[in-house]
């Protein structure tokens, strides 16, 4: 099953990383899990290898094996070598000499990978001191140099700051700087950009690419995003259920994938193909502020010059201690159509959504949903109005109460709105479970037993329980694997057709939006930047920011 090397010129000498027929088995009291089975691959010095796989494919296990971080009681068969050195059964002392100095690691989640109680400069200094030397002056100088090398502006200031004061992109760069501190020749990056906005992702990936070029580092990048791998890697290794099912250099793999799974992954990469989405009733794009005051029957939701301000510590985003999350936004969503609100973190899109859900009150302006001014409703009347609009949330694992069964979760809105007798509720719950293509046996299960896709379907069933006309969706697929995303999007499109629903969809992912939306509104830092039909905005973006978002999407061009 070894793929040919393609057109690459052979690099002389030992490969930087070589994995030969490695199998990793976890043994716990309850059961034995074969996480990785007979995987072989290699990475030549100075190249970029991407390991692509979905959850449960074994890619994280490979990473832990390469860093000697597998838990006690794990069986490893086969061999793996770092720069020719056999580390398969190395003990902790051997690993100490290798970690940091030979192989560096960039972890996945910048939010939780930095010690929140230490300043940035001290965290880097700790590693520099381990690998380079003790002179305080030298250590400090080296730390600042590293921060500058990863493109952090004003290293002196940043070194004195704490992690919570930095944005996600900056934190990720700090993690890269930490990985470089030992001057390694191999860097393993575990999903280095999946927690970041798309424009920031591009910047971080560019940084990694330039480091590879400049320092001749071998980069092994783990990712679930085939588009990123296609853009940035020299070779791609595809993993499924613990096996390496295909590996080849990028051009060959993309042009001639030899396995069905690879073909499926390639097909599923959401592409901006200019408006596949929705079966909206209206052909032309109405302007965002069309018929400003008059809400006719076509309008499902209107945000009328809405502003939301928060008190915050004085910072760049909040001069004078006021953070303007939403800044005088006027927007409409039309019945029967899907409006996508797109933006990066901090754009205000989630705040807009929560105002339309009456979970948040605007500082000024009004929000009308299906004719009702939400600001005027309270208590019972507000609860009654909620029958018409429901919500599907982002995190499928957190949106269901772990102490309730699926049946109880779906039944909850029915009980809250006093829907008939227990028997009628039971019938309705079964009907809903069918609609979202889940088996009836799922009713007895608890959320902890379900997968991400199954949980999200349950959340959709719950949202549809009281027959709302309008469904708000807050990044409903961003926490799911690519193959599951596609299924959920198709389910949502089908439901819209069958039930005549209106969707308001918040997302940071333009590619997903192009598949399902009719109209799109682009938000940046609280302001509405651009609005129009999906065809128009994605094909002929009028604003520079929209163009920037489109350009940053990996896999374009």
């Amino acid at each position: 099953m070894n793929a040919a090397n393609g057109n690459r010129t052979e690099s002389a000498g030992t490969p930087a990383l070589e994995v030969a027929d490695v199998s990793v088995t976890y043994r716990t009291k309850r059961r034995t899990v074969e996480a990785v089975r007979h995987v072989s691959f290699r990475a030549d010095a100075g190249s970029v290898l991407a390991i692509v796989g979905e959850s449960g494919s074994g890619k994280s296990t490979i990473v832990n094996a390469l860093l000697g971080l597998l838990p006690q009681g794990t069986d490893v068969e086969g061999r793996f070598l770092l720069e020719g050195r056999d580390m398969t059964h190395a003990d902790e002392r051997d690993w100490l000499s290798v970690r940091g100095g030979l192989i560096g690691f960039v972890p996945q989640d910048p939010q939780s990978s930095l010690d929140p109680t230490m300043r940035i400069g001290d965290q880097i200094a700790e590693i520099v001191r381990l690998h380079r030397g003790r002179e305080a002056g030298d250590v400090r100088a080296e730390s600042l140099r590293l921060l500058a090398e990863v493109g952090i502006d004003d290293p002196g200031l940043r070194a004195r700051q704490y992690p919570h004061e930095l944005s996600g992109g900056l934190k990720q760069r700090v993690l890269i700087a930490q990985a470089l501190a030992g001057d390694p020749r191999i860097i393993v990056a575990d999903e280095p950009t999946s927690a970041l906005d798309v424009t920031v992702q591009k910047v971080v990936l560019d940084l990694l690419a330039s480091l590879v070029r400049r320092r001749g580092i071998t980069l092994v990048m783990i990712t679930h995003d085939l588009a990123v791998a296609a853009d940035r890697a020299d070779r791609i290794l595809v993993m499924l259920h613990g096996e390496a099912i295909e590996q080849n250099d990028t051009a060959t793999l993309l042009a001639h994938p030899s396995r069905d799974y690879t073909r499926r992954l390639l097909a599923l990469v959401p592409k901006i193909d200019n408006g596949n989405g929705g079966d909206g009733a209206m052909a032309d794009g109405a302007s965002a502020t069309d018929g400003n005051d008059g809400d006719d029957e076509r309008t499902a939701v209107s945000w009328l010059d809405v502003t939301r301000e928060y008190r915050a510590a004085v910072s760049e985003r909040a001069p004078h201690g006021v953070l303007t999350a939403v800044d005088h936004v006027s927007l409409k969503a039309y019945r029967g159509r899907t409006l996508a609100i797109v933006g990066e973190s901090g754009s205000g899109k989630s705040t807009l959504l929560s105002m339309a859900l009456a979970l948040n009150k605007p500082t000024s302006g009004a929000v009308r949903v299906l004719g009702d001014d939400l600001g005027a409703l309270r208590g019972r009347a507000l609860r009654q109005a909620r029958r018409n609009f429901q919500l599907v949330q982002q995190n499928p694992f957190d949106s269901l109460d772990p102490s309730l069964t699926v049946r109880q979760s779906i039944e909850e809105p029915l009980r809250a709105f006093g829907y008939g007798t227990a028997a009628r509720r039971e019938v309705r719950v079964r009907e809903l479970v069918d609609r979202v293509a889940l088996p009836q046996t799922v009713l007895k299960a608890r959320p902890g037993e379900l997968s991400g896709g199954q949980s999200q379907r349950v959340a959709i069933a719950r949202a549809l329980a009281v027959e709302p006309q309008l469904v708000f969706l807050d990044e409903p697929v961003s926490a799911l694997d690519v193959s599951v995303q596609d299924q959920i999007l198709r389910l949502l499109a089908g439901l819209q057709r069958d039930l005549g629903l209106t969707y308001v969809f918040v997302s940071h992912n333009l590619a997903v939006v192009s598949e399902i939306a009719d109209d799109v509104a682009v938000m940046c830092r609280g302001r509405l930047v651009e609005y129009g039909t999906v065809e128009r905005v994605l094909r002929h973006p009028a604003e520079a920011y929209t163009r920037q978002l489109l350009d940053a999407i990996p896999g374009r061009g």
Partner: protein
Amino acid sequence: MSVAETTIAAPRAGTAELADPSAVRRALRRVGGWLHASVRYPGTLIAGVFVALVILAAIRPAALTRRDPYATAPAKMLQPPSAEHWFGTDQLGRDLYSRVVYGAQSTILASLVSLSIAIAVGVLFGVIAGYVGGATDAVLMRLVDVLLSIPGLLLSITIVTAIGFGTIPVAVAIGVASIPTFARTARAQTLRVCSSAYIEAAIVSGVTPAGIIARHVLRNVFGPVFSLALLEFGRVIMAVATLSFLGFGAKPPAAEWGSLINEGRSYLMTSSWVPLLPGLVVVLTVLAVTVLAARSEKELKR
């Protein structure tokens, strides 16, 4: 064309396949787990047996002893432990063993009453403070802080002095002194639960605030509170015994453990079994309860 979904194990799932959700089977598995644990951890087994005996003594003392704990026999005073009197006799010739057995009743009863008061009031304060927030939270938590700032025993003694002596007043006093622990834990857990997405989902589903507290908050707060209650039980038993030792409990000739120790104090040097054996029973009970609590906490965590 339908594609089998890659089963993504949720972060908390312990099994890869859809577990059999039947409640009966789950309960059986739990019991089986406990039995298994008791075989692997003999200390837990012994503790369990001991606590079971104590509870039996509290419910049906007659099952463990045939003698009358109040029957005095001055001729037989201060006899050391023997086959006839397992714990010997006290200064009035009463059988000490049966006094200890009958004493379990009031001690355990008082402990359960205090724990119930502490949990009921503490969780109420904590959940409301955590859910409503703002000024309500501040006021409730400052009240709790006041209770916390007074040393527990001193607070209990003050309350008992105010409301009168006896087993139930002791229970109330210790219950009140134990409120802060539960209030704080309940509040912290409520804050955690309220930041979850499913609370937002419940609001959007039209559930009233009361409904959210009853259905979502209380259920998810229950686990940590239960663990805490088990650990506190041992401490409360000790506190009840202490107060009755100090004389605030039931009047003689009632056979509370603490007062047994108190009565026997004077005979410590000459007939040491009189105070020491009841004391030993108290210590062993607290120890056994704590061992069980620690073991169940470990099992629950899995």
